[in-house]
């Protein structure tokens, strides 16, 4: 089947959306942008292809809306098994890469010992992997580096101590290998991993009846042809696509928001280092836009910095700020100054939640200024980007929009992080259609 790909290469994460000919989203994929844009794009695209398979499975079962419990249970198991296969494959890559790093002066005395220790570490990592993907298990992150990294370090320390080996040797081979592994997409074919996953599920017997196997096999046989691809995002100058496959992220976000909410007229996107205020017409065509310039204060990274300063996880900031009853007034719009102000206020004994609430407000105040410059808020208003997932930011936004523009319908889609990629996929679909019809794309 024909598919259209949109990729949004952001400063923090890279997102991909796979769309079919009927403008339906088949799959979404996300990965960390890392230092290699090319890999980030390929991994995100591959992730979207994996997600697309699950959409196809559901279609085969006639349960696209996720309403059939037994289908969801089965597909849940299949997905966990697939993720496990994927993890094991990358783990194997990591093991092989680590082995190639055992050379040079510092390994002269301990080369054999390190090899044995590595074998033990990876044996234990593989052994505990199924538990990480068991039903109900939670993982801190979905990115390989995060999952494998923390466990490798813990296990390596144990093994090194038991074998009386210097721990830093095991650390050294890991450090040299992880970037290489992360910067290449998993090499195995997706269908092989799906088949291995199916086998696992079949063997476990959970939730699988014979009647389910056939539709799954059928869906796996559908070829997903990449008909056209459009890329966008912060690194547009260095995007690994040719010029005719690149669209401005402003246009992609405008169109993406329009596709999610056709009555949208104003879009606010707050990403890692960009804040965009976009005005669109009834067709999703951009009328005007404004972005932050030279300074990324008030963008997603601001929250990341604050989280680091407070030694908290990024996702913990919003919930804590929601507890505030008396938000502090934060005067610094500069991220670094805000960090200093934060430390001062903490030292003065102000409550963390009040300070955090103030910081969220200051982000949104900056965003409001950018929106004003682009032409203000018109009904309906759609908020997208990573920061749209932060409930405290959303609360401040709603408050400020109401104070300044009155009653306006505010749309926030849980998948809003994919807005740019969605617009890109639609541009890809239109470009391919135009090419077929002989219209200049």
């Amino acid at each position, binding site marked *: 089947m024909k598919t259209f790909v949109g990729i949004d290469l952001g400063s923090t994460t890279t997102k991909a959306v796979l769309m079919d000919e009927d403008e339906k989203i088949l799959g979404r994929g996300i990965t960390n942008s890392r230092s290699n844009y090319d890999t980030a794009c390929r991994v995100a695209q591959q992730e979207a292809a994996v997600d697309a398979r699950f959409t196809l499975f559901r279609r085969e079962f006639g349960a696209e809306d996720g309403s059939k419990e037994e289908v969801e249970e089965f597909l849940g198991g299949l997905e966990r098994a697939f993720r496990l296969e994927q993890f094991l494959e990358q783990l194997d890559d990591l093991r092989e890469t680590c082995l190639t790093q055992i050379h040079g002066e510092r390994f002269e005395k301990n080369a054999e010992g390190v090899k044995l220790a590595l074998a033990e570490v990876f044996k234990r990592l593989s052994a505990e992997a199924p538990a990480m993907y068991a039903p109900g298990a939670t993982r801190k992150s979905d990115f390989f580096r995060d999952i494998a990294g923390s466990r490798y370090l813990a296990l390596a320390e144990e093994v090194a101590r038991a074998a009386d080996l210097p721990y830093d040797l095991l650390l050294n081979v890991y450090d040299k290998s992880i970037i290489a592994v992360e910067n290449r997409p998993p090499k195995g074919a997706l269908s092989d991993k799906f088949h291995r996953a199916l086998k696992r599920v079949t063997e476990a017997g959970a939730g699988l009846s014979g009647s389910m196997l056939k539709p799954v096999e059928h869906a796996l046989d559908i070829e997903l042809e990449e008909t056209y691809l459009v890329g966008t995002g912060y690194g547009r100058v260095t995007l690994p696509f040719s010029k005719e496959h690149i669209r401005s992220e*402003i246009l992609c976000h405008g169109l993406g928001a329009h596709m999610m909410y056709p009555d949208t007229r104003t879009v606010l996107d707050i990403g890692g280092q960009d804040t965009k205020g976009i005005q669109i017409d009834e*067709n999703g065509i*951009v009328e005007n836009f404004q972005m932050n310039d030279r300074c990324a204060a008030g963008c997603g990274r601001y929250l990341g910095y604050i989280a680091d300063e407070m030694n908290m996880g990024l996702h913990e900031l919003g919930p804590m700020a929601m507890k505030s009853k008396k938000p502090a007034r934060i005067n610094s719009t500069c991220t670094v100054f805000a960090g200093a102000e934060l430390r001062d206020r903490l030292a003065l004994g102000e409550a963390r939640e009040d300070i955090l609430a103030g910081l969220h407000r200051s982000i949104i105040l900056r965003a409001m200024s950018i929106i004003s410059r682009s032409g203000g808020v018109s009904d309906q208003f759609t908020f997208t980007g990573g920061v749209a997932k932060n409930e405290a930011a959303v609360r401040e936004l709603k408050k400020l929009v109401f104070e300044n523009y009155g009653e306006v319908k505010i749309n926030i889609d849980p998948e809003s992080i994919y807005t740019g990629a969605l617009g890109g996929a639609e541009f890809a679909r239109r470009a391919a259609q*135009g090419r077929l019809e002989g219209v200049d794309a």
Partner: protein
Amino acid sequence: MRPSIVKAKPADVEKDASMIKQKEMMANHFNRLTDATESGAKVASTFVPGNLNELIMCFDLVNNLPEVNAIQSGLRKQSGAYIMEAERSGHSEDVCTYVKSDIGMMLKGNIGPNGKKLPDPDVLLLSYTGCFTFLKWFELLREQYKCPTIFLQTPYMADGKVTPSMVQYMVKQLKENVIPTLEQVSGVKFDIDRLREYLRKSAKAEDDLVYILQTGKNKPSPIDAYFGGIYYIGPIFGAFRGTDDAIDYYRFLREEVDQRMLKGLGPVTPDGPMAEEKYRLVVEGPPNYTNFRQFWKMFYEEGATVVASSYTKVGGTYDYGFRHDPDRPLETLAEYCLGVYTNRSLPMRIDMLCDYINEYEADGLLINSIKSCNSFSAGQLLIMREVEKRTGKPAAFIETDLVDPRYFSAANVKNRLESYFQMIEQKRNGKGAAA
């Protein structure tokens, strides 16, 4: 404004014959300036908007334009160091970077583009035409040079028209203050017939300039009226209005532009003639000079030609019909000052930009807002909204600076420009288009 200064190897930059002519003119002018101390010539410093070059020449004074010196420093990548020097001596980060570049250059020995020291001015002639920073600038120069300062006040065109009393008010100042002081400084008696002769020459060159700028109405436009326009306005906005050199230059340029038009060619860029005109833009605001070629390239690489700009009107709005009139010599100088773009009210500027979009059949308006310009950046967002509303054409807003290299963020500017070009494309194609 000074093509002679755009640094590029002759091999990789195409130059029109008119550009070579202009280069010679500029070189001669700078030699006259830097030789002034030796030759005994007196020097008048003044500004581009409201530049009374014909009058200055009547007193054998050599015209020195600090703004143009700042632009040159920008093009020659020297303004950054000058600005730092000025900041070190106490000028804040927010001060106009033309001023700081000029002050910094002065502090570092006032070396002109020909490598020789520029002379101290004998008189400062300020024809105030809307930019309030000019007043402060000359206050600083007066402090430094301790020379006579003349202030010719041009009433602001708040109501959108020139009234007889405005003209009389200015003529009175010319008669009672400007001319007597210039006579005193120069030791040359004012001769009104000499002024008439210069004005006659001015009008001749002005006719050709207008013709050239209006060729932007053609498709494709044979000129770029912003980046190329900077070169075209150089002589007439500077020290050559009223000279035979200017007449020759504009005749020459007109012939070249005519040739390109006949052949259906686009503008000449530093990388050769532009291949395809994909977008026709009207631009408001000055260009960035520290990254001039890089900035221009972002346009011509995408097939964007600027067909009309307001910046090429800061030294006179000749396309609205004004010509220097030898039969009314003092009145015409007053009317010239009153009419320059910087002296026009916000509604008048909006009207002008809308006219350009319609008459030049442009795809939209681009505003290059100047970070350090307090006089003209205010109101630009309103201008943008109003022009969008009236013309229905998309507009975009970018920010750079005149001559402070720290304020040119290439990736940001390019990102916005590309988004804008795609936005135009999308608007053109309407719903369902691939954009």
